[in-house]
């Protein structure tokens, strides 16, 4: 924990999640491409400027076939940002990187936007993005059972307790100046350096960057203590705060 650093400035690595359209082609590809063209004809610009992930799970194809498919799609302005479920043998240099750990979202979230665009005829004005260096949310009262605090933009600080059955979901770290009885999830958009701090640990569940720990997996000696939790590799480390 107290390692000397050569330079006080650290390299900033950030996690961010994006919504991607996943295309799962089936064999034979020719037929599938015809159906894709039909879809593209009905809603023009569906794939324009959209990140697309190709799901080739369980497809018995080889590297050449995959390469051809990617070329076919590129010809239709469908740019593949990653390949999901591809065996290492069919992937290679010059191909989009392999992706894993994708989480499904509702179909509505994916299709809603282009439909609105089509009806309006012109794209919605995009609000200029204002981003401060780091955002934080401060809650000055207890978070009650049944309440959720969701703040993907940064850190959440609670001056009070988090009740059993309440949850805090932060893109950054979670600081609780009270007892954590509910759930706390830090780094929810993929931020492995996020931490959870609480004055008294009685949590039902803690999670950092999607890796979670239930109450029964926590060391009994930490219960009721001031604790900080962070991620080392794929495991959550907890330590008493003095």
């Amino acid at each position, binding site marked *: 924990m107290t390692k000397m650093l050569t330079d006080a400035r650290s390299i900033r690595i950030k996690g961010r999640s994006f919504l991607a359209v996943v295309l799962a082609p089936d064999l034979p590809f020719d037929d599938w491409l015809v159906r894709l063209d039909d879809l593209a004809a009905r809603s023009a610009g569906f794939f324009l400027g959209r990140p697309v992930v190709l799901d080739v799970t369980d497809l018995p194809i080889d590297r050449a076939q995959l390469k051809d498919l990617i070329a076919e799609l590129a010809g239709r302005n469908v740019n593949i940002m990653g390949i999901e479920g591809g065996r290492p043998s069919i992937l290679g240099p010059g191909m989009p990187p392999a992706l894993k750990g994708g989480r499904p979202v509702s179909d509505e979230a994916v299709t809603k936007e282009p439909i609105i665009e089509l009806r309006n005829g012109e794209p919605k004005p995009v609000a200029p993005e204002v981003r401060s260096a780091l955002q934080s949310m401060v809650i000055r009262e207890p978070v009650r*059972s049944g309440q959720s605090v969701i703040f993907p933009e940064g850190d959440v600080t609670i001056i*009070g*307790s988090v009740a059993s059955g309440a949850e805090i979901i932060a893109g950054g770290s979670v600081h609780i100046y009270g007892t954590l009885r509910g759930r706390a999830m830090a780094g929810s958009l993929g931020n492995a350096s996020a931490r959870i701090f609480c004055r008294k640990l009685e949590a039902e569940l803690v999670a950092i960057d999607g890796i979670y720990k239930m109450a029964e997996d926590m060391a009994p000696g930490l219960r009721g203590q001031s604790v900080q939790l962070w991620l080392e590799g794929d495991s959550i480390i907890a330590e008493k705060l003095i």
Partner: protein
Amino acid sequence: MGKVIVVTSGKGGVGKTTSTAALGAALAQRNERVVVVDFDVGLRNLDLVMGAERRVVYDLINVIQGEAKLSQALIRDKRLETLFLLPASQTRDKDNLTPEGVERVITELKRVFDWVICDSPAGIESGATLAMRHADMAVVVTNPEVSSVRDSDRIIGLLDSKTMKAERGERMEKHLLLTRYDANRAERGDMLKVEDVLEILSIPLLGIIPESMDVLRASNIGSPVTLADARSAPAMAYFDAARRLAGEVLPITIPGEKRGIFGKIFARRAA
């Protein structure tokens, strides 16, 4: 303008109706005009605890639906001049409780009474949210056990978000009434301690009502415990709570700290 209090808890069976009746009778004995309103449509009990079950002609739903005037539905207590009951309907559907109707009735009651005490149904459905909607302050009834405490915590969250006061950006005044408290069981760890409950809920304490047979006995004879036996331990605790509601500052005593006859009865029952 009178004050509207909601007596609520989330969980059922913790003593909302008993506390509504006891606090109402205690306030009325201070010569203040009090109405207790039963919001538990379909499962009404407040009329029984108040001993007025045979005198119900019209009810809250009748008033809301315009089938009766408010003055026709109000039942005056036989023992206390200034205590009134507005009963719930036992037969009607609870969907008849409309937000507009409730608002009209509460506004009218506020004009006439010093205290409007709303007995909320259990749960977090529309009946409970309507009962709390127009309240100026809330009495959260909690038993010293984990499920009741968590449900109360949930209700406090709703009080801070679903009420008119919260929507206007004001703070809802909330008070904790700890009922069925048994000092011996708390000491043995069978029950949560007062400080644990306060730590979890973090709202000010209105009073601690000891677990007592007097409460059940009073309910069975159809009388608020503060009327049936004003000298009993729970009645005295309710009187103190009522004085605190009216703004007096009194030290809180934890029942059972000094063991009297009360303690002996308990010791025997536990054995």
